[in-house]
Structures are given as structure tokens and as C-alpha cells.
């Protein structure tokens, strides 16, 4: 689950990391009120940032500066009216604009290769790390945190020294880097990214500079959400499609695509393969859908509702390799679902493995078109979607 910038910042703040002031507003008036407070507190400018869970909001006009409260309100009106990559902007973050000396990149993420928590730092902050990796891979400094003790202070120091932090700034960097890993571990985050980690003037400190976490990106491991009700409460259900929510709540992995052939499969790898074979047969998949292992009739019926909610679906391909999942159970679910559904779409069903014979009998009795091989099922579905016979 991705957190919005405002919530990500809040998570870092709770962990004691330096995060600048700022508040979320859902109306221009609220944005104005926050801006007034920030100007009263001494801000020279404020920044208004769209809270949407996609990248590139800056280029889309979702991040703007304002020099006074009037401007802040007007800017909030504009940004709250935007739709960025299909997502309507419902909230903005209003924060004081920082006087940035330079920008650092810092992140902690789950790394498959080392099978641990990878820290990446770069003196080229502000840029996307993928961009740095492509242009100048040597500019990215890496450390793998200790699997149980987190990022050890000497590792954090090593990262900081190598991107040029010294003295007071190095101490702050060590606290922030170890803090990111602490946040990742305590909140079960796959990714905690601070970009930019900004160096700003701090005349009161020796060295005259300090670090602040200007922007933050946090993704929580879905498997761990159950033990973080406080984070689950941050889920942005407003920007979640109702169909996506039903799928999530039913434990069905569903991703809507643009094609015409609805797919219902058990197992993620087999579901991807089904999409590949539909594509290979000249069709276009309407979705990825994995009903998971051991699915019962009610889940099958829910999956059918989810697929049919997509008006672009012209044909349905059901592909089940019975293992834990029993084929007859799926067949019964399909028959039950057909009785309830509002529109009729041609369907081809392939059920092999556990109780495939019982399933075949049920399907034949129910008049379903069937297929034995996956290749054949894909071809039939493509033909059905094109208006042909199964």
C-alpha cells in the first residue's frame, strides 16, 4: 500500500526525523488558512503539493509555489481541480518552501538480490534514482542493513561520508539513515524514500547547515498491514476503484487492463501465462485475475462479478489447474454465478487437475464451452471475443 506524501512525512516525523512543518488541506479555504499560519511563522513562500499516488505530479502542474495567502488559495483552487494520470486531486499539502542549499537522495528498500534492506544514497538528490542509475551508477552509494540490528551506525556513517557529509551534517545524516531503516522495520515498509533530503541553512548550528526530509515516499508491505491498523486507516479508499476494493476484500488479485477478454485463473504465474497466450492468439486481455489457492464457489462468483463489471469484456476465459483448488468447486461457482449475472458474455472454461472429471460433467451438463489445453482455450476465447463460435 502506497502512502501519500503527507502520511509518509508523518511516519518519519513520529520516528523523530526532521520533517518540515505543513498540513493537508482538502479545500482552497483550508489551504489558505494553513498558508496564513506558515507565513505568520516566518515562511517566505509556501509550496502547494497535490497528494496523488503517482509520479510526475510536478510536470503535471501539481506542485506550485505561492508568495502570499491569496496566491496560495488560488493555487489550491487550480491544483484541486487537476486530474493527474486519471487520479483526481482531492487533497493538497501546504508547507513552507525550503531554502535549499543542495539535495541528497536517500532510501531504504527491500532488496531481492541481497535478500535484505538496501540503503541507497546519492549526492544527486531531487533526481529519480533510476535516472541517476542510468547516467552515473557510481554516484549511488549502497549499504545492506544488518538483518536484525538494522543499519549499524558505522554503515550509516560510511554512506554519509561517501556523499560528502562531514561534522554536524554527518551526525544528522547518521540519525536519518538509521531512522529510515527503523521506520521500514517498525512499519513493515517495502520502501522508505526521502528525495530530496535537503541541506538547508541553519546559522544556529556549527557548520551552518542542517538536513530536512522535504519529500517522502513510503510503501507498506500488504502482507503486514494486518498488524498495523494505524496504517491501514490511512488507506486512501477515495481514490480506490470500488471494483478494486471488492477484489481486495475478497482476497482476489485483480488488475484491470484495456482488452476484451476477461480472465479468471488460479495462481499468479498461470494467470500471467493466460494473458500471454491470449495476446499471442491475437486477443487482448481485459484483466489479470488470480482467485488464489483453494477458492470456493462464492469466491468464483465474486470473481465473475468483478470481471463483468468491466463493460469492455466481450468474452471470458476461465483457466483452472486444480491442486488445492478443486475443479468441481469452481464449476459449481460458475454455474451459480451465471444464474446471478446481469449480462451474458460468451465463455470458455478449462479445468484440469484435481476433480477435473467431476468438473467436466458439471460444465457439460450446464452447457459451457470447454477446452482441454491452455493454448486451445486462449484461441477459443479470442474467437468468441471476435464474435465467433467457441
Amino acid at each position, binding site marked *: 500500500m502506497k502512502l501519500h506524501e503527507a502520511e509518509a512525512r508523518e511516519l518519519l516525523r513520529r520516528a523523530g526525523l526532521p520533517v518540515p512543518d505543513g498540513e493537508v488541506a482538502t479545500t482552497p479555504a483550508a489551504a489558505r488558512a494553513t498558508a496564513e499560519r506558515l507565513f505568520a511563522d516566518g515562511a517566505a513562500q509556501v509550496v502547494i503539493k497535490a497528494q496523488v499516488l503517482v509520479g510526475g505530479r510536478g510536470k503535471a502542474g501539481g506542485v506550485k509555489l505561492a508568495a502570499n495567502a491569496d496566491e496560495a488559495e488560488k493555487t489550491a483552487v487550480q491544483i484541486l481541480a487537476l486530474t493527474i494520470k486519471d487520479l483526481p486531486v482531492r487533497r493538497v499539502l501546504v508547507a513552507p518552501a525550503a531554502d535549499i542549499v543542495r539535495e541528497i537522495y536517500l532510501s531504504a528498500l527491500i532488496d531481492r538480490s541481497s535478500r535484505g534492506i538496501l540503503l541507497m544514497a546519492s549526492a544527486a538528490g531531487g533526481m529519480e534514482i533510476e535516472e541517476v542509475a542510468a547516467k552515473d551508477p557510481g554516484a549511488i552509494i549502497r549499504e545492506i542493513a544488518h538483518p536484525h540490528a538494522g543499519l549499524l551506525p558505522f554503515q550509516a556513517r560510511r554512506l554519509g561520508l561517501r556523499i560528502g557529509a562531514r561534522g554536524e551534517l554527518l551526525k544528522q545524516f547518521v540519525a536519518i539513515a538509521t531512522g529510515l531503516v527503523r521506520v521500514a522495520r517498525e512499519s513493515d515498509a517495502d520502501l522508505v524514500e526521502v528525495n530530496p533530503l535537503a541541506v538547508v541553512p541553519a546559522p544556529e548550528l556549527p557548520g551552518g547547515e542542517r538536513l530536512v526530509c522535504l519529500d517522502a515516499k513510503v510503501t507498506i508491505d500488504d502482507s503486514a498491514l494486518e498488524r498495523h491498523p494505524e496504517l491501514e486507516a490511512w488507506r486512501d479508499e477515495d481514490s480506490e476503484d470500488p471494483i478494486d476494493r471488492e477484489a481486495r476484500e475478497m482476497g482476489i488479485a485483480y488488475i484491470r487492463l484495456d482488452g476484451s477478454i476477461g480472465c479468471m485463473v488460479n495462481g499468479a504465474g498461470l494467470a*500471467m501465462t493466460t494473458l500471454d497466450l491470449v495476446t499471442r492468439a491475437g486477443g487482448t486481455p481485459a484483466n489479470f485475475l488470480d482467485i488464489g489457492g483453494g477458492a470456493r464457489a462464492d469466491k468464483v462468483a465474486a470473481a465473475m462479478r468483478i470481471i463483468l463489471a468491466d463493460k469492455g469484456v466481450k468474452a471470458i476465459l476461465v483457466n483452472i489447474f486444480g491442486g488445492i483448488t478443486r475443479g468441481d468447486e469452481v464449476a459449481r461457482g460458475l454455474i451459480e454465478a451465471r444464474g446471478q449475472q446481469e449480462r451474458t458474455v460468451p465463455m470458455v472454461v478449462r479445468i484440469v487437475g484435481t476433480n477435473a472429471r467431476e468438473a467436466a460433467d458439471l460444465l457439460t451438463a450446464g452447457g459451457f464451452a470447454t477446452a482441454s489445453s491452455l493454448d486451445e482455450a486462449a484461441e477459443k476465447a479470442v474467437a468468441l471475443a471476435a464474435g465467433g463460435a467457441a
Partner: protein
Amino acid sequence: MSILVGPQTRLVVQGLTGREGAFHAAQMAAYGTTIVAGVTPGRGGERALDDRVPMFDTVVDAVRETGANTSCIFVPAAGAGDAIAEAAEAGIKVIFCITEGIPVHDMVGALAIVRAHGAQLIGPNCPGATSPGAIGSGTKIGIIPASIHLPGDVGVVSRSGTLTYEAVQSMTDAGIGQSTCLGIGGDPIIGTTFREALELFAADTATRAIVLIGEIGGSAEEEAAAWAAVHLKHLPRVAFIAGRAAPEGRRMGHAGAIVSGASGRAADKIAALEAAGFKVAGSPTELPRLLAEAGYTKA
């Protein structure tokens, strides 16, 4: 004659008294797997599986009393990382974790403990492994249906569950048997990678060809290909990669299956595998034909 599991296997099932554990333990036993113990805290002293298997409170008790050397874990996700650590600490050297949905940070910790004890973890969120034999004399750990297997000499390694069954079924239908069929799981942090599985198969004299079933996300297939290019030249090898049609940035069910920018794409994986001498299939049904094209002949 096989990797990881075989006649030497003395299995303890952690979570044997649960619904999944009990069902699959019975299936494993029926296929010929030697199950010597079950562990459920508080159930020590009871017997399970039609009174044939003693239950213990802890894995260390099970190891001491029965000489168990392999574990299969069906413990719910919240406790599964801990169950893995318990098995490793008790001296179990081959640990299968079937459980799905284990928080990834739990796995970072559990895997470090597994490594510190010199054990091999397979999974989590994996279907297990089968070293096929005739029914009653094979060894099967996990949830792979016994019916799809045929004894033979092709090593199969896969990140998926049902896709593996599909691939193995197509081989069995063509009369091509398997030395061991291993599902390594689709999570981001797993105990045994493709490369490590290939190393095991390379050292197994009974494995005469390799089938690798990969998918989008990460770079494990590329890493395995790089290793195979140097060390696996002597074996015919074929592969299938799921997710050619997957769009960027959407997680395809498996926590691990996601194309992120320029990494994890099917095309790159296929190119890397082909460069390493793998024949790459466009559908699981093509695997038998490609095996033959790669120079594999049935023994």
C-alpha cells in the same frame, strides 16, 4: 538421483494439526514421503495421521526424538517466520515454507537465522518439491499434486505454483519424467533462488536436462542465466517466462511479479536466457518439443 528431497528425507511437519497441514501431510505420506514427526505447540505427546506420527511441542524435541532432517511449514503467516527460525535453530537443514503472505521483514530476519545455521530454506509461498517415484515410493513435500509427475531425469525449477503444474503436466503427457520438481516461490525474499537451484541440479548426476519457469519482476532469471552460461553448458536447458503481456508498474499477484521501469521485463529475461543457451518456450505446451530440440533424449 534428486535434489533436496528423496529417500533420505525424514520429514517433520510444522503445523500438522491445522487444516492445510493435515490434508497435505496425508497426501505426502500417501505418495511415499517419510513423515517422522509433527509439531504443534501444546500438542506434544499426541499422535496424528491415523496414529502413525508422533506430535511434539517444539521442533528441537522432534529432531531429538525422531532424527527429522527436513521440515515442511504450514503455520499461518503471522507465525511462519518464527517457525522457519525454530526449524533452523533445531538443526533442520532443509526447510520448506508453504505459507503465503509472510511479511517481508519477517523473512529478512528468518532467512538470516537460516543462513547462520547453514540450512537451506525453500520458499516461502512455494508449492514445495517432488522427487517422483511410483505412488508410495516417491517423495513429495508441499502441495504439488502427485498426479502430474513421472519419474525421470529432467530437473524443473519454478517461481510459480499452478504454472509449474501446467509445465510438468505437459512434460508428463509427453512421457518426459522429472528428477526433482522444485517450486521456489514468488515472494521478493526467498530462501532458494533460481541460481542456487541450478547449482543443486548441476551437482545431481541423475538430472540430465533443466526446465526453468520464470516470470517478470526482479533479476533472478538473469542471474541464473549468467551462472548457467558458464556452469551448465553440459545440460540441455529450456525455459518459459510468464508475463510477456504484463503492463509496467502493476503487481501481477505475486508480490515479486512487477515490472519496474527498465527492470524485470520478460523480454530482458528471455534475451538473457537465450544468450545462456536456453531454448525459451512461448507456451508451457512447447516445453517437450524444445527439450528435444535442445538435445534431450529420454533415457
